[in-house]
């Protein structure tokens, strides 16, 4: 597969780490969904490198495998073929426990439909990734959750429940949840897909700030050409393959 078009910003953060291995590296990644009647090739030999600090957007028609790509990078699913490397280390035959640890430490997720737990308050939702991290006490959890909510401008809503928030606010809670774990990588699957353009803009700004100020590596799936152009690099997908 080809290298993708980039929108080179003034100084690509990746260049600073030229000697370091890419943060995420996919080699001939393949994902085939096998159901009783049909076999769906969701990813067809995808090769891709993403460096630390990059903000990459992924575009493509519905059903072309974008979500599948994110779930493989995010260790939610295993590829049926190929090699995935994080920080130069192949992710293969990891135990359930090791995978859970990596997900918790390295990766933050933001989903199109937020995936907040409706039975938990905003604060409890944001604390969630820290709950699964050893050595983080209740007090520190609370502090970090408050700090994360502060960043997304929701410190006044900590005791609310998701059902009491607007879509944009919910997505900001989801971003705060991803922030609270201080992951190196944020994987966002159509984070603005359910939002109107004003709210979408807000979320986009949040992600851009995060990338710029904290150096968080972000891979974002989007349908919005306008948003995609704001990122450093755009990958286009078609039918399980990367194009361009």
């Amino acid at each position, binding site marked *: 597969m080809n290298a993708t078009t980039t929108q080179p910003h003034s100084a690509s953060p990746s260049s600073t780490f030229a000697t370091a291995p890419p943060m995420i590296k996919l080699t001939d990644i393949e994902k085939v969904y096998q159901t009783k009647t049909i076999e769906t090739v969701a990813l067809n030999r995808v090769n891709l490198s993403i460096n630390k600090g990059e903000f990459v957007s992924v575009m493509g028609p519905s059903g072309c495998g974008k979500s599948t790509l994110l779930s493989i990078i995010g260790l939610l699913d295993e590829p049926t073929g190929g090699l995935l490397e994080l920080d130069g280390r192949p992710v293969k035959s990891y135990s359930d426990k090791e995978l*859970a640890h990596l997900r918790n430490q390295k990766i933050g997720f933001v989903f199109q439909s937020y995936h907040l737990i409706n039975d938990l308050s905003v604060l409890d939702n944001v604390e969630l990734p820290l709950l699964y991290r050893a050595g983080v006490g209740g007090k520190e959890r609370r502090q970090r959750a408050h700090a994360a909510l502060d960043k997304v401008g929701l410190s006044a809503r900590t005791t609310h429940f998701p059902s009491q928030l607007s879509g944009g606010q919910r997505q900001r809670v989801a971003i705060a949840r991803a922030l609270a774990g201080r992951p190196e990588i944020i994987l966002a699957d159509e984070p603005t897909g359910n939002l109107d353009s004003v709210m979408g803009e807000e979320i986009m700004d949040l992600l851009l700030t995060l990338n710029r100020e904290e150096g968080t590596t972000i891979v974002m799936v989007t349908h919005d050409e306008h948003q995609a152009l704001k990122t450093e690099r755009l990958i286009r997908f078609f039918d399980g393959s990367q194009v361009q």
Partner: protein
Amino acid sequence: MIRHLFTLIWNRKRSNLLLIVEIVLSFFVLFVVSSLLVYNVYNYRQPMGFDYQNVWEINLNPGADTTAYNQKLQLTMQRLKATKGVIGVTKTSSNTPFSFSTMNGAYSYKGKQMPYNDNFDADDDFRDVMKLKVVEGRWFDHRDAASTRTPIVINTALKNAAFPNEKAVGQIFTDEKGEKEWQVVGVIAGYRAASDFTEDAPLSFRRRALDYDMTKKASSYELPVLLLRVQPGSGAMLEKQLIKEISNVTKGWSVTVNSLEQNRVAKLKFVLTPLIVLGLVCGFLILNVALGLFGVLWYNINQRKAEIGLRRALGATGAGIGGQFLGEMLVVTTLGVVLGLGLAMQFPLLGVFGVASGVYLQAMLLATLIIFALTAICAWQPSRIAAGIQPAVSLREE
């Protein structure tokens, strides 16, 4: 994590309420059944106070024959005593061990009515035939023949109810009006005769000699009943001979011979049948409750697939998810059990059914153990399913 569990359960209180109610109700049913079980097991393990082995019961019925009744009976007993293979003979009332007949009443002591007690007729040989254990005073003997008050021997339970801190021998019971009098000559350890599951309840033996009034028509409980202790290993040969001896004296009286061992088995069947039926009904009830719990948990987990996937994505291990569901169930069960215990506590506090509070406490413990085991079993499979849910599948956008 425990705090998190409580938060989660509290926030989901509406859906957990149903589960808690179900647990409280099942706990209560289990508690009642356990009480019954503990009560019966406790009684079963008490000493019976007598030896039913190698004792035969002979029921005599004179029919229309009323001539020289007492003499014939006396002669019969003499003949039986003299028969080789017979160790002892005693005459008693129809409420023999494991029989379906009872006699009871309540004595008064210093004008105060005592608890109801069973009464048995007994003669001087009864203790030796039944191998009773006298713990105070003595059993009936010839000295009692001249007594103006009816001599009685009571059991420890009656002694403890009537005069816990005094000697029993010499004490006098009256009837309600203070007209009739009974005098205690001895105390036996116990005599749980009705069945293996009979409580060690207050009872008395009243000395009764051969004093049947045959001018009146004999009521069925007045029919003579003899208990014979025979040599171990006695069988049909001896039985045949006994019947022959009796027939020689009492021509035309009907005779039936049973061993107390046979009677015991018959009574056990009778007593156990309702217990077994109850046990089966409760078993089905518990099965129902278990299926209900299982269903609710199963449903819960299917409802919460997205949550499970999310937790996995955020770093929960499969085992952690399974543990969370088991933990939630543990907390909910504990809440239900605490409520159930509060309810069950009323039984010993109010003294319902007059059963010792120790029985209730053990029953509570047993019911608690069973309910925890039950919920653990019911939660196990759903939790395993939860633990196996793959994050990628459950997080799919609709």
